[in-house]
């Protein structure tokens, strides 16, 4: 795990190398390990990657990963003002406290959510998958249509090969190698890592230069002062961590969204919002607490429901499947050793991260001297070796190549790749549950009459309209009614879920809807 954290810290620090890529590249090394060791290593990489991004952002102004973008807003100015050690220290310790908060929420909430998951029937699971896909696509912003097309293409890729339920071959076009379907990891590495690497070397001049022409200097991290500064801002830490956890639970919205949300909220809540961007500690504490906490939230969904929310957790799910572990609501009770190992690994990885930061800072400075084209060439062959090692099948290498080309083309045409990758991962789950639902009853109305299914389909419908709401907000009248109608619509299935707490929540939602509607009418009048 220590090696994993170190690798993650270094990979996260290199601009252009995302955490997902670091986790993907670690996967082949875990084949020879037990499930517990493998997952712990990957969690180490994940935590390291989340914290590594801040090094590049603060020392050079170029964020190492998208999850550290907001950290750069204040981290870089603070470092330029002559306090790089303090800036790094605040970043590291905010990551630590945010991550620990995320870990506590993970340990507390995952078993509870898994219990809720036990209520799900196949209709509900199918609806949940649809929700995960629509929200991922809707987060693609202006390219929402392209996002949904990419998600559908992912579902189609998952449908190629032998049907899991009936064993019937589909779309093989006479090629026996395709009968087994495309293995998930070669598809993922091809679509994501391969295309990312080739995009990084597109510009010949840039590819030949060292990663950071000006170079970065290793500095001494001021731990003691930083801890005091972070603890003095415990409200910011807690608020940002909860923003992070909540964002992580939502499928599709990862740490790249949460760090900016947390920064924005910290600025709004501050007494001195004008000082943000000039190098103040609050501007570092908020994004760094939230991005580490986000993965705690994302792990909750994978462990409790078996539904990955982003590419990183999709790889985690793939790693679990390689070790013959299928996450589901009963995962925590059936595999307590593995489940609690993941909890503990996520917790301890943050301690290792703090310890290894100083060493990684020196290695990071050395790596920044290597030109991008060298890293790309070496990593391409490493991808090939790693993918082959998965099943020892040559066809997987061709899958990697094919999806590498496809990923590069789609990326250049402006299609977001995250919905496609989630489509590939969730395609089998969706089809399996549709089959189960149909086997139990061919009454399609169950998708609307079952509370959980109706709940997820309502969320899916509103998440589809959300980009239009964002576009028209303030200019079109219908946007004034978006949230009141959402509150009413979501209250209906919650009301029918039974028990005592849920009807109370539903009543609260209705009251909120009435209040929002009343305010809109008042404003309109």
């Amino acid at each position, binding site marked *: 795990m220590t090696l994993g954290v170190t690798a993650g810290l270094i990979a996260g620090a290199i601009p252009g190398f995302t955490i997902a890529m670091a986790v993907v590249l670690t996967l*082949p*090394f875990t*084949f*020879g390990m037990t499930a517990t060791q493998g997952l712990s290593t990957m969690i180490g990489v994940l935590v390291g990657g989340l914290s590594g991004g801040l090094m590049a952002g603060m020392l050079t102004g170029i964020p190492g990963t998208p999850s550290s973008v907001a950290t750069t807003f204040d981290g870089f100015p603070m470092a330029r003002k002559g306090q790089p050690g303090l800036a790094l220290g605040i970043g590291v310790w905010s990551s630590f406290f945010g991550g620990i908060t995320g870990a506590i929420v993970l340990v507390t909430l995952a078993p509870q959510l898994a219990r809720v998951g036990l209520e799900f029937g196949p209709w509900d699971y199918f609806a949940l998958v649809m929700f995960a896909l629509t929200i991922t696509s809707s987060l693609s912003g202006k390219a929402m*249509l*392209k996002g*949904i*097309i990419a998600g*559908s*293409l992912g*579902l*189609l890729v998952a*449908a190629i090969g032998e*049907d899991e*339920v*009936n064993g*019937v*071959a*589909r*779309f093989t*076009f006479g090629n026996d190698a395709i009968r087994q379907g495309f293995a998930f990891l070669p598809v993922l590495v091809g679509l994501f890592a391969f295309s990312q*690497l*080739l*995009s990084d*070397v*597109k510009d*010949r001049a840039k*590819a*030949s230069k060292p990663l950071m022409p000006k170079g970065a200097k290793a500095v001494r991290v001021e731990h003691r002062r930083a801890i005091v500064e972070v603890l003095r801002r415990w409200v910011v830490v807690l608020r940002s961590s909860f923003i992070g956890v909540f964002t992580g639970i939502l499928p599709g919205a990862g740490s790249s969204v949460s760090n900016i949300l947390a920064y924005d909220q910290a600025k709004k809540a501050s007494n001195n919002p004008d000082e943000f961007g000039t190098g103040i500690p609050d501007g570092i504490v908020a994004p760094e607490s939230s991005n580490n906490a986000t993965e705690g939230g994302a792990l909750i969904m994978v462990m409790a429901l078996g539904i990955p929310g982003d590419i990183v957790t999709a790889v985690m799910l793939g790693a679990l499947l390689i070790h013959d572990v299928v996450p589901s609501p009963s995962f925590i009770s059936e595999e307590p050793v593995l489940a609690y190992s993941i909890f503990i690994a996520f917790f301890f990885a943050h301690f290792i991260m703090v310890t290894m930061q100083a060493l990684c800072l020196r290695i990071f400075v050395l790596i920044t001297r290597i*030109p991008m*084209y*060298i890293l*790309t*060439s*070496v990593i*391409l*062959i*490493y991808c*090939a*070796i790693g993918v*082959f*090692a998965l099943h*020892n099948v*040559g066809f997987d*290498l*061709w899958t990697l*190549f094919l999806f*590498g*080309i496809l990923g*590069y083309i789609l990326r*250049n*045409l402006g299609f977001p790749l995250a919905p496609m990758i989630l489509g590939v991962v969730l395609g089998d789950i*969706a*089809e399996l549950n*549709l*089959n189960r639902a*149909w*086997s139990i009853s*061919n009454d399609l109305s169950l998708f609307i009459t079952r509370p959980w299914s109706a709940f997820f389909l309502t969320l899916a419908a509103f998440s589809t309209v959300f980009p239009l709401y964002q576009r028209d907000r303030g200019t079109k009248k219908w946007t004034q009614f978006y949230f009141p109608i959402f509150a009413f619509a979501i209250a209906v299935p919650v009301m029918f879920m039974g028990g005592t707490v849920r009807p109370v929540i539903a009543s609260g939602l209705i009251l909120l809807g009435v209040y929002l509607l009343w305010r809109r009418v008042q404003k309109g009048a």
Partner: protein
Amino acid sequence: MGRFHIDTLVAIFLLLFCGVFLTASFSIRETSYASLGAEVWPRVILIFLTLLSLGYLIQSLRHPRSKPTEEGPRGPKRWFLSHLNAFWCFLWFGLFLLSLPYLGMLVGGILFVFVTLTSLGRRDWHGHLVHAAIAVIAVGTMWAMFTYGLKVFLPTGTIFPF
């Protein structure tokens, strides 16, 4: 090209793609035991994808041709040059896969890394030496790690059996 731009071409391609796959979905064997046939789910996806592609086509036709970038008009030559590095990588990777049964992972991998580095980076004697050293060390280390450390049998070649 007039109103035709890249999105229109992509949308037409997607529609053709859906057509081919929808036709192929009628060749999927039907079974007597299945409650939901193997062809149903892919057809649902394909019909949905066709509708989305139609929407994409209409959207691309409604919107005027995208504005030229700040770099000025982009001809085919400029487009080709802007993707040249990626084309090199794809070409060498494809050849690496084709040569794998003959050269094996170690030799094939070293050659792939060396040729890719030379295509993307500097092309003088010093560069060649550095690239050769990087290729041998990087691929050799990984090959040894997987073969001896992780006990993974990597492809061997008929010419070079390692």
